[in-house]
């Protein structure tokens, strides 16, 4: 079998690695003991999570009046956070599904963690609409079952209900996609486990995976078909989220550009979050040989592309708003009114973080620099939060009726719930990093001979 790959392609696995070395490196964080830094990070995340739980309990007990929402601005931080988290959750499926269809081998070093991040982010996203219902015990009303009031059905004309279907399909399909990929890697941990308890746990998790030839054949086919299904799915999810806004008649929301623009924005923010996590993880878990400069640079290229799409959308919105000559369009989130009005700081935060800073990635020196990549990823995370805040709050703050114009200020409960979800996200991710095989090692082994540095060198020497 030929393992040839063009020598011009940079290796994806650095160093003199054998199949066994990959096993050892991936199993190391699971088999080793957590160090002090992990415990510190975990404690901080857990405290933030508990703080958020307290705020959620307070909200549910008292009612959503404890939030900063008012008559005019009836969606604010809650929906901002919801859209922000769903958007972040787009990168995992994009990396594992779209890049699989495009046969991008660099996906294999990062897809596992990106998918984990997706699932954990969608958990956070799902919390917000449910809490926002106020009476969370009635949350089952969104399901298409005859409800307690008689045989009254859900409204299938509503994009909010489409959201329920889209996000639950997305979460559950991402979960099985991730889990199916995990089976061989859990089996690897199971067969290496020394402690009986560990062996038991990983036996249970690996579903008795044995690595038969027929199993692998089905495994690969299932992965490919799931990738084919997940690709339009991931596009549909944020399309439908954007329809929550686009099908309304609020100036600034009622925009046909929203679906593609939201999807690009979601990928943009999701890749930024993957970048944030991976840059830390490759250091902490000693995975520098598998998450290399090539991976980081490729991620930055995707960020640059999707950031470019988002920027074009901003310019279009801004121009069309101005060109319409309508006074209502002069205070949408991308307009002269927004740039100079009371929310100027939110407008310029968006433009600076999402439009200006990512342009630095055009320079190879900067996009291959780990520190700069980390900084940019944080900036984009902040910028994309502001994008959703701007769309929701700025657009709502100036309606058709001037007497109801108002500003929004969050209460500590709004802030606490947001911090709580960040804490919850990191609690899940930190636990994942210590108990799961964080790299799809089985898949990675299949490209070792074609993309490993030592094998590439060996072939290069033979040619001469």
């Amino acid at each position, binding site marked *: *079998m030929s393992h040839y790959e063009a020598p011009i392609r940079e290796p994806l696995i650095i160093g003199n690695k*054998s*199949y*066994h070395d990959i*096993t050892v490196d991936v199993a190391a964080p699971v088999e080793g003991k957590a160090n002090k830094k992990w415990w510190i990070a975990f404690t901080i995340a857990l405290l933030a999570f508990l703080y958020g739980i307290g705020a959620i309990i307070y909200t549910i007990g008292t009612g959503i009046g404890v939030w900063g929402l008012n008559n005019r601005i009836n969606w604010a931080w809650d929906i901002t956070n919801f859209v922000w988290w769903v958007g972040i959750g787009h990168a995992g499926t994009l990396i594992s599904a779209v890049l699989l269809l495009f046969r991008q081998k660099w996906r294999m070093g990062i897809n596992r963690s990106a998918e984990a991040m997706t699932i954990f982010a969608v958990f956070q996203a799902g919390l917000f609409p449910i809490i926002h219902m106020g009476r969370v015990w009635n949350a089952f009303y969104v399901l*298409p079952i005859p409800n307690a009031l008689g*045989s*009254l*059905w859900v*409204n*299938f*004309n509503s*994009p909010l209900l*489409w959201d329920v*279907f*889209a996000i639950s*399909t997305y979460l*559950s*399909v991402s979960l*099985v996609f991730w889990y*199916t990929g995990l*089976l*061989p890697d859990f*089996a*690897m941990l*199971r*067969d*290496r486990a020394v402690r009986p308890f560990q062996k038991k746990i990983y*036996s*249970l998790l*690996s*579903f*008795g*995976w*044995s*690595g*038969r*030839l*027929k*199993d*692998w*054949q*089905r*495994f*690969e*086919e*299932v992965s490919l*078909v*799931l990738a084919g*299904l*997940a690709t*339009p*799915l991931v596009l*549909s999810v944020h399309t*439908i989220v954007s329809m929550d806004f686009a099908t309304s008649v609020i100036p600034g929301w009622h925009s046909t550009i929203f679906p593609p623009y939201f999807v690009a924005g979601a990928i943009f923010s999701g890749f930024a979050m993957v970048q944030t996590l991976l840059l830390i993880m490759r250091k902490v878990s000693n995975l520098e040989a598998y998450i290399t400069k090539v991976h980081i640079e490729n991620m930055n290229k995707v960020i640059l592309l999707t950031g470019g799409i988002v920027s074009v959308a901003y310019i279009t919105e801004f121009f069309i708003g101005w060109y319409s000559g309508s006074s209502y369009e002069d205070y949408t989130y991308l307009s002269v009114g927004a740039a100079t009005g009371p929310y100027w700081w939110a407008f310029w935060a968006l433009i600076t973080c999402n439009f200006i800073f990512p342009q630095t990635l055009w320079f190879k020196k900067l996009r291959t620099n780990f520190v700069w990549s980390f900084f940019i990823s944080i900036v984009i995370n902040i910028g994309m939060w502001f994008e959703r805040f701007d769309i929701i709050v700025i657009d709502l703050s100036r309606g058709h009726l001037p007497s109801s114009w108002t500003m929004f200020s969050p209460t500590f409960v709004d802030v606490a719930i947001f911090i709580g979800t960040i804490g919850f996200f990191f609690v899940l991710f930190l636990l994942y990093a210590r108990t799961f095989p964080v790299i799809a090692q*089985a*898949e990675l*082994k*299949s490209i070792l*001979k074609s993309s490993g540095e030592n094998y590439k060198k060996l072939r290069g020497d033979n040619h001469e």
Partner: protein
Amino acid sequence: MSSTTIQAIFDDDDVLLSAVKDLKAANYRIEEIFTPFPVHGLDKAAGLKNTRIAITSFIYGLIGLGFATWMMNFMMVADWPQNIGGKPSFSFAENSPAFIPIMFELTVFFAAHLMVITFYMRSKLWPFKKAENPDVRTTDDHFLLEVSTVNDVKTLENLLKDMGAKEIKTKA
């Protein structure tokens, strides 16, 4: 005459692949191969038929699409038609544009989940299932080939050794 199954362990996928090709050419029966990762071309070399799991997924997807169409038509048009926000739902044709997102979602939902369940059932993967790989190294960096013969066992063993097998033993 009863047949004997020999287990041969390889430590390289290319050596394994050429061994499988040679064994097939010599008309040996390959019982099973355990590998730590998917070795491309091995299924063809071992004479495995293509999997039909993608076809099942297509059928499941059609079921999902049909279910979504029936469900929304029943709930919104047949059972309890309402005029919501000036958008009456008195016929399927009038309402169908609003139904498309959920038709799509349920198609994907059915196609993905039922296919994965089919995969787990067919490959016998479920919680508490005991692993059946004969050697724990086959999830790390070794490849185990089970090949059976009714003829001379010694010949097969020597053949496997020549092909590069690291360890050879008779399956109990």
